[in-house]
């Protein structure tokens, strides 16, 4: 089973719920969606995956993308700039 190491970033209320802005995660998840669902259960994160977007290394990505080792994964809650 393939296992990869990711840096995960949290923002805004997701950061507060996770109790951290960033963590390193070792995962064998097949998709970014699975990565989030695992962390959601771990930390009791308030957002279902449908309300989030996901980004990898500073660019939006797809939930079905496979996690790549060494990458920086960010879960993006609904934005409120402006």
């Amino acid at each position, binding site marked *: 089973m393939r296992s990869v190491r990711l840096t995960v970033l949290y923002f*805004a209320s997701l950061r507060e719920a996770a109790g951290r802005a960033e963590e390193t995660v070792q995962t064998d998840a097949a998709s970014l969606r699975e990565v989030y669902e695992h962390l959601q259960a771990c930390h009791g994160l308030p957002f279902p995956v449908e309300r989030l977007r996901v980004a990898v290394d500073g660019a939006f990505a797809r939930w079905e993308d496979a996690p790549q080792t060494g990458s920086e994964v960010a879960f993006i809650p609904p934005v409120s*700039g402006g």
Partner: protein
Amino acid sequence: MHSDMPPRFRLAAEDFDIAPLRGALLDDRAGGYASFEGWVRDHHQGRAVSGLFYEAYPALAEREGEAVIAEALERFEIVDACCVHRYGELRVGELAVWVGVSAAHRDAAFGACRYIIDEVKARVPIWKHERYLDGGVGWLHP
């Protein structure tokens, strides 16, 4: 975009001056200029606001902001456009976001200006955290 071109979307940690940004959009071909500014209001949904801060994911915000402006340049007959968004701590009345667009005609200037602020608000990873006079605080996740 050329790598040595200055970015058209920027994040600003401190209050910024609009005059040079507007000046950079002045162009003899342009007959119209539309701009929008978002200021920190003293109330939100009936609650008095004492202050706020914006959290950003800078790498993605800059990339997505540039994408929004590139789309505006493609969709509208405009000469140039620029957007700056604050992050960090802001007081009531401070400037939170500025958009400026120059174009030959006002239709395109208004259309692109509206497009940019709408898309920035919808897509660029910046989050508003408000503090209320009644002591409450909250993240806005519309």
